[in-house]
């Protein structure tokens, strides 16, 4: 409590600036809330697979996971986020999330996305976490993404190449993936208020594209 009080006192503006600062902080906080709303930020705290298709680039991967064997029991996060402890789990989520947000904001994302070294290690760990009884005799247990990149060991999917996303990457894997797409930014009730009832605006279905 004392520390908070000190921080508050540290930030306190001069008396004649207080009103302006309050208004400006309000604007700033408002923008933050808006970003939290449009980016579905809260959904990232969960492990729901639908969170991953907040981004269009994930549609083909969602589709191949959904139709594959892992779609029955394992979620995206079960494989792509560390599951050994809470702190590491949220650390990886946060750093990956910030990196992805930066990439998309500045349009740096490649057409054919490739898993990076840390991601490889995480997935490899999670393969072993569930399938330990299958791999403990084939000495894969020690292999990490870094080791595999130095060509000093094989990762599970170096052989199981179709698991779980198939062997084709990018949009070519599922050009017309049937996944639920995000609705308009405007809430349905607000849109209806202004433009009347129009079901197509509230939820978009995938279109047949050429």
């Amino acid at each position: 409590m004392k520390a908070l009080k000190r921080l508050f006192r540290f930030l306190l503006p001069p008396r004649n600036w207080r009103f302006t600062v309050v208004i400006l902080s309000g604007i700033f906080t408002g923008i933050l809330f808006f970003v939290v709303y449009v980016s579905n930020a809260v959904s990232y705290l969960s492990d729901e697979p639908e969170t991953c298709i907040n981004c269009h680039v994930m549609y083909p991967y969602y589709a191949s996971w959904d139709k594959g064997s892992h779609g029955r029991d394992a979620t995206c996060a079960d494989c792509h986020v560390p599951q050994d402890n809470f702190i590491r789990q949220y650390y990886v989520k946060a750093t990956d999330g910030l990196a992805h947000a930066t990439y998309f904001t500045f349009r740096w994302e490649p057409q054919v996305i490739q898993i990076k070294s840390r991601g490889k290690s995480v997935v490899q760990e999670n393969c072993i976490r569930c399938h330990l009884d299958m791999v403990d005799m084939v000495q894969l247990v020690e292999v990490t993404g870094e080791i595999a990149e130095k060509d000093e060991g094989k990762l599970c999917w170096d052989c199981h190449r179709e698991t779980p996303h198939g062997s084709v990457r990018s949009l070519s894997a599922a050009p017309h993936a049937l996944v639920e797409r995000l609705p308009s930014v405007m809430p349905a009730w607000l849109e209806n208020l202004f433009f009347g009832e129009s079901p197509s605006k509230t939820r978009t279905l995938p279109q047949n594209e050429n």
Partner: protein
Amino acid sequence: MKSIREISEKKPWVNWVLFFATVIIVFVIGLFAATIIERRSEAQLYFQMVEPIPEWEPDNEVWGVNFPRQYESYKKTLDTTFQSKYYGSVMIDYLERYPEMVVMWAGYAFSRDYNQGRGHYYSVKDVHNTLRTGVPQPATCWTCKSTDVPRLMNEMGPSEFYAHTWAEMGPEIQNPIGCQDCHDPNTMNLRITRPALAEAFERQGIDINDATRQEMRSLVCAQCHVEYYFGEDNYLIFPWDEGFSADEMEYYKDRVGHTDWVHALSRAPMLKAQHPDYELYKTGIHAQRDVSCADCHMPYKREGGIKFTDHHLRSPLDNIENSCMVCHRQSEATLQANVYDQQNRVSELRRIAERNLARVHIEAKHAWDAGANEEEMEDILQLIRHSQWRWDWVAAANAMGFHSSSEALRVLATSIQKAQEASIKLTSVFNRYGVEYPIEMPDLSTKEKAQEYIGLDMEKIREEKEEFLEKTLPQWLGSI
């Protein structure tokens, strides 16, 4: 610890630092929010026909109004900077690179000028500029060069179109290869606009309308990137009735008695292969795995929330990451090396074939000069015809055999074998007439020397072209 208030009272610039830091943070957050909103609305506004496109609309720009992303990427075929080991989008003077080809095409317009085709955007311009169109050509030559062709064929019917001359149709041909060649203007579905392809399949009892979408992603290319010849009244025909291979097409052309020209040196009844890209690709591993032309040459692309096909048609070597690496897990450098490995092998055999063929044409000329008769030469000329056809079948196709390198190597090997066989037969003719062997070869080290050897007056040919470009062409281009 002093509060900011106290610090800033003494150092007023601290306020400015705080101010600008806040500006930057809010700006970036705003940017982040804006991109999310943009992506989300893009996905909803995907297919928006702003202006309906009339049937047979040849102008690519009109299509581009509705499909800006596809059009913008198509316009990148203007780029002529990419160069791979053997090809690319740069203009390459093939006669300069392979001067033997001048001798191999003696008596045929290809000996004047033969360049690597640039992007689709240049299709009409390059045809205007090539020295090959200095000789009278039929309108059939335009068939694959312009979106105006489907329009004209719709107006006058294909046979009437083919019956015209190249120059007569010149003023009508304005737009380069583009949207209409492959797309239906209402639905944007892929469609076949050139009758020759549909007719070739029809003769085999196949209805092209039954093709699947994935097949169409290759068949629209196969309207042009195939072997063809001009039949009666210059009607465009694909020689596929006996099969797709070099051997089967050769058999077919022998059967119908087709000859493109009689060689000026060897007097052999020659065949010119066009660019059997589709046929060669069909024998390759990618076709066997159901990978279409578009999968490598125009891969899917995403811009924000919008998925489309990259219409920048080009060598996948210019775009390895988005084409090859969709399926192949190796690095860009490894994949490029793998392609070059295959191309190097094909190139090696191809060069051997070229040197053999140039030599055998010249040897045949010496045999005629020594007094050999038609009966003695008949088998030899047939071997030369077949040998050069097989070499051309690989050489004229794009990608230096990569579309199916094992088939390319097989065909080149038979080409070399036939040229060698002709050479051996010629030695017995030389023996009979007391000609000293080996025959001394002229200097064919450059295009100019080779053209001089076969007696081409290049200066005059170039002057005629200049005149056409200065006088006739402006009238054509100004006619619509």
